[in-house]
């Protein structure tokens, strides 16, 4: 038996075991009908957000001033109270809004905002929170104490109030800054993305704290276990132990947590846009569409109900998917939170 064969024969069971955990999880996920439904919906929503300009019949900002608040005839039977005010059109599949923009196109483009928040929020929470928590938990002692007290103080801040304060701060301070400065460049970038950059930062500022605490707690128990002692005995440095040995072990619970937090990010963005601190007009967000529609809820309720429906369906999809992922990755947690 040569040396290379020995290495191969010890490596194979190791690989099979890791594959087993994930294969097991995939199997459980595939058997969960609600999770599959959620995953399918998320896939459809993501695709329609990516191909929004191909799918939507009009652009989201194109106005037809002659057909403001117009609606297709079939809607009268669903929204009977509209009858006295209705202006029937066949140009817009779901009607037009108060300045004559196509509602269907705006709904499709609105998915871009909600979906990007749904993907960027967890990424920020994972990146910042995990690194912060790993460092804090791994080094322990005074470092841990100071880092966790900072998180404690941030936690005591009413989350939504902090985000609102932040958004007001970004929207006015950065907009008024001198050309050539960093803040001015940030503001220009934010404008190019229709106001999304500041939404990401605002959500990111509060999103990382939960993951940081979780990662730290996990590391505190893991670093005392034999495998990290073994790694140290074999001469691994701090960075290697943290990222090669501890990180893979804490990743499962972290992924569950951030997936379950996605609906929260989506509703936060919707609310920010609802009160006018989110996206810049004319960029459509379901939150700002609900806000516009709510002004006319007595006369044209569909303008608020349709984006509300889209928002709820998206949150349903992510909730189903998150629950399914949790059951698949950690069956012991079933039913907890």
């Amino acid at each position, binding site marked *: 038996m040569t040396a290379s064969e020995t290495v191969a024969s010890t490596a194979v069971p190791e690989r099979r075991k890791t594959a087993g955990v994930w294969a097991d999880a995939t199997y459980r996920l595939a058997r969960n009908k609600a999770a599959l439904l959620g995953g399918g919906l998320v896939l459809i929503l993501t695709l329609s957000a990516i191909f929004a300009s191909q799918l939507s019949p009009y652009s989201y900002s194109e106005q037809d001033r002659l057909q403001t608040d117009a609606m297709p005839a079939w809607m009268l039977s669903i929204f009977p109270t509209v009858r006295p005010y209705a202006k029937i059109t066949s140009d817009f599949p779901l009607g037009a809004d108060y300045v004559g923009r196509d509602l269907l196109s705006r709904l499709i483009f609105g998915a871009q905002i909600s979906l990007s928040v749904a993907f960027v929020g967890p990424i920020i929470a994972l990146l910042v929170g995990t690194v912060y928590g790993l460092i804090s938990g791994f080094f322990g002692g005074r470092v841990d104490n100071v880092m966790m007290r900072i998180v404690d103080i941030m936690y*005591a801040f009413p989350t939504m109030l902090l985000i609102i304060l932040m958004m007001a701060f970004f929207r006015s301070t950065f907009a008024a800054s001198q050309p050539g400065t960093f803040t001015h460049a940030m503001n220009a970038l934010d404008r190019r993305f229709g106001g999304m950059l500041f939404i990401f930062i605002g959500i990111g500022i509060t999103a990382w704290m939960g993951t940081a605490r979780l990662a730290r707690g996990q590391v505190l128990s893991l670093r005392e276990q034999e495998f990290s002692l073994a790694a140290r005995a074999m001469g691994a440095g701090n960075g290697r132990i943290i990222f090669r040995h501890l990180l893979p072990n804490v990743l499962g619970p972290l992924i569950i947590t951030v997936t379950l937090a996605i609906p929260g990010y989506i509703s936060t963005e919707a609310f920010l846009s609802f009160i006018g601190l989110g996206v810049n007009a004319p960029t459509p967000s379901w939150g700002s569409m609900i806000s516009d529609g709510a002004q006319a*809820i007595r006369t044209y309720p569909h303008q*608020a109900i349709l984006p509300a429906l889209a928002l*709820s369906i998206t949150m349903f999809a992510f909730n189903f998917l998150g629950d399914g992922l949790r059951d698949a990755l950690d069956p012991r947690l079933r039913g907890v*939170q």
Partner: protein
Amino acid sequence: MGRYVIRRVLWMLLVLFVISLITFVMEHSVPGGPFDQEKKLPAEIIANLEKKYHLDEPYWKQYMRFLYDVLVPQITQGESVSMLDEAMINIKLGGDYYLRWVNFGPSFTSRSRTVNDIIREQLPVSIQLGIISMAIAITIGLPMGIVAALKQNTIWDYLGMSVAIFGVSVPVVAMGPVLVWIFGVTLKWLPPTGWGAKPPYLLFFIPRNLFSWDFWKYAMMPAFAVGTGYSAIIARLSRASLLQVVHEDYIRTARAKGLAERVVTVRHALRNALIPVVTILGPMFAAVLTGLFVVEQVFGIPGLGKYFITSIGNRDYPVIMGTILLYAIFLVIANVVVDVTYAWLDPRIRYE
């Protein structure tokens, strides 16, 4: 235990101090003053206004002045004389002397009211709505969670947990307009916006028309919109907690000694399973209260949250500071109370 409580309270004060500092720095770095209006005021008038509200002083001095006004109790002769020294707590000491404490200062934009006036006027509305929402959340969530756990993996379990997913999936921003459309516009059962209670209130927040339809017709929709979300959390938590408890040894012991199933469930299982549920009610109420401005905005309810959003747009520094501190106090106290209750309810938990 005593030392633990003292340490938690000291920590709480430090947290509030840092929060006030962060808020102060952030609100003062926002460009534009509270006296910027569509129609520009003459420079002398702005200078006079800034002098009156001490905005011409250096920032550190303004912050010190704020801390002094809020923290230091003062004994004065006679009642409050101006808007600048109106205090939240006024205690008559006898004679013409008053002990006065917590002065958040005057509001910059509504000139005739102090921040304390605004809190006194708007906070009761938020508290009323918060309590009713909590009551709805508990009455829906608790039975649903208990039934789901007792009949695990039956149709009742799946039904209850589906309703819970519905509850967490429909945000207030979406549910508000839908409820208004159904009950306010189409059926015309309830008024779509507004609030039914007016000051003065009994015991600071109980509306005088508590038992009349005039109050409830306004309260039902917003309270339901908030309550469903939290009922889902309560249902999931009570289900999980009860499922965990029924597998404990002492439940088997209770069954083994021949107790009736009803007695085992109610006296042994439920009692222990409800400990975590009861302890989250405190922070949940704080979260409901500080999260109410969503629903207040949607239903046009004159609560403190709605006023907070307006005051950010107006750069009304004292109102922003007062509201954030007030809400932070709620959150911090709720957390400390939970930690202490836990230590008291469950002797297995030790704090050092």
